[in-house]
């Protein structure tokens, strides 16, 4: 084993203060980890669900059938995205600490924020890929169903012979069929997952168990849908004391407002999207990510292993 001729020593290379490529390395490693944990297998489950809903739903009309397919598949995508964001994030970081992989990572010239960002990006890449695949599969399915229903309506009549009733029926089918705006619903699911993942990262920087992190993250996520309700509830109280005001403000600050993503349900039901809702969603998502990652860093930077 000893070969006196080769010398291993050479001068040290420069270390950049912050390095995107280190974040990327960590993100890809997280992606590899999740892939080798066979997480992508759930995509088959999604495909089965889609086929089942597409072929065996007992809706009274084609339009309703299409609407059901959309609701179920986009609902499943959304559920997958936020649940996966919480569970994967809550399991990965404590696992690195337990397995002492974190020792070896943080003893390399890696900054702690780079590690946190790497984990977040890795989880988000998996979610992004999954949502894209699910979206494409689902869009294909809806369009195929839609074209089939329209063909059934038309039968062997030529376009000139179509009755007004048939025209209306086709319009209704198209209204409930595929729209490019559906991509925005998928984007909303992705952004929601990103925010909830950053909340989970913050929790896992100080929580002692993954189970605790998962439960609290789910709670934060659910409570985060009650911003309007909370505002109304507290405003309706006769006692508008400093305490209630402070509590209300605290709630509004600490718990992210997941209602900013709610408009996507409307998209799935065929409603039009206001561009302002999209901008608001994008802006707030970015702001939440920055805030939660900075808070995570605050607790993580002094953490001892």
């Amino acid at each position, binding site marked *: 084993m000893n070969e006196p001729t080769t010398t291993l020593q050479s001068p040290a290379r420069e270390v950049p203060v912050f390095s995107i490529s280190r974040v990327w*390395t960590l993100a890809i490693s997280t992606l590899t980890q999740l892939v080798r944990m066979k997480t992508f297998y759930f995509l088959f489950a999604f495909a089965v669900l889609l086929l089942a809903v597409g072929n065996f739903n007992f809706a009274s009309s084609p339009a309703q059938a299409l609407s059901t397919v959309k609701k179920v598949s986009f609902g499943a995508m959304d559920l997958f995205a936020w649940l996966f964001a919480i569970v994967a994030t809550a399991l990965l970081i404590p696992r690195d600490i337990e397995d002492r992989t974190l020792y070896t990572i943080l003893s390399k010239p890696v900054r702690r924020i780079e590690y946190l960002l790497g984990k977040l990006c890795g989880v988000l890449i998996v979610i992004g890929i999954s949502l894209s695949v699910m979206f494409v599969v689902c869009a294909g399915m809806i369009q195929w169903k839609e074209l089939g229903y329209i063909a059934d309506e038309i039968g062997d009549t030529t376009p000139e012979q179509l009755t007004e009733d048939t025209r209306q029926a086709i319009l209704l089918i198209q209204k409930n069929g595929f729209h490019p705006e559906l991509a925005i619903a998928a984007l909303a699911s992705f952004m929601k997952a990103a925010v909830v993942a950053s909340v989970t990262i913050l929790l896992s920087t100080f929580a002692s168990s993954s189970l605790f992190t998962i439960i609290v993250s789910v709670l934060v996520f659910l409570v985060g849908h009650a911003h309007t309700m909370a505002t109304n509830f507290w405003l309706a109280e006769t006692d508008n004391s400093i305490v209630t005001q402070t509590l209300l403000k605290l709630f509004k600050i600490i718990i992210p407002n997941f209602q900013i993503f709610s408009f996507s349900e409307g998209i799935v039901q065929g409603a039009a999207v206001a561009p302002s809702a999209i901008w608001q969603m994008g802006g707030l998502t970015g702001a939440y990510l920055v805030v939660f990652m900075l808070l995570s860093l605050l607790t993580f930077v002094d953490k001892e292993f």
Partner: protein
Amino acid sequence: MSEPAVEVKNLTKIFSPDLSKNHIVAVDNLSFEVAAGEVYGLIGPNGSGKSTTMKVVLGLMAASKGSAKVFGYDSGDIRARNETGFLPENPYFYKHLSGEETLKFYGKLCGLKGSELKDRIAELLKLVDLEGAAKRRLGGYSKGMLQRIGLAQTLIQNPRLVILDEPTAGVDPVGSRQIRDLILKLKEDGFTVFLCSHLLEQVQEVCDRVGIIFKGRMRREGTLDELIQIESQTAMTLENASPELMGKIHDLISSDAAAKMIEEGHPRTTLERLFIQIADQNKKEESA
């Protein structure tokens, strides 16, 4: 090369696990230096604060008092870590990665890429004799192989300093011999090695200088020769000594006014004897 590789000054580390009650003083006013190019061994029983000291040096933990420096950089400085390779106690790497992928991952974290990284990986796999297992996942590695891939990982960015926490713990004799040879090879190539162990024999075989630590405090420090030589004592190792011969020797000794039999038994490594002596001393101090 006058600057020390590691400089620990009055380092104290106190853990307070349940907030304010029950302080654990893991490291107590510890000072030592590791000169560039030497192999320094910190030895002490389990729980004496060796790992804690190393973690403070690496910046994985903050010192409660005192300081630790690596080549003049404060521990925790990213430049200090750039110069340091660390092999933790019982290291676990990502089990889903192969040996080669593991080295690639750590290499990329250190800013290596392309053919430079590839060459480095090949070189290190050869050095630790894992070329045959390069494509296998770590989940199927033996303890000795894990320790060797871990050692390769510490060297990936060509650090000047290598910190090894119990590098041979739990490895079979053949495996630990391999690791010992590797450490000697590192020394030959001009690396500074700072290792800790409770396995004295191996420390004795590779270290230039040794520090003996008990309950977080440095008890003895010096070169091996200095430490294990006891001028006033003479050791005698006999083979096939009959009880009659031993009786005669005992009689001779008791007839001499100045000489005293201190120890009799089967020979041990000298460092081990020193170690036990300090442990006894420690016990006496405690009961006093």
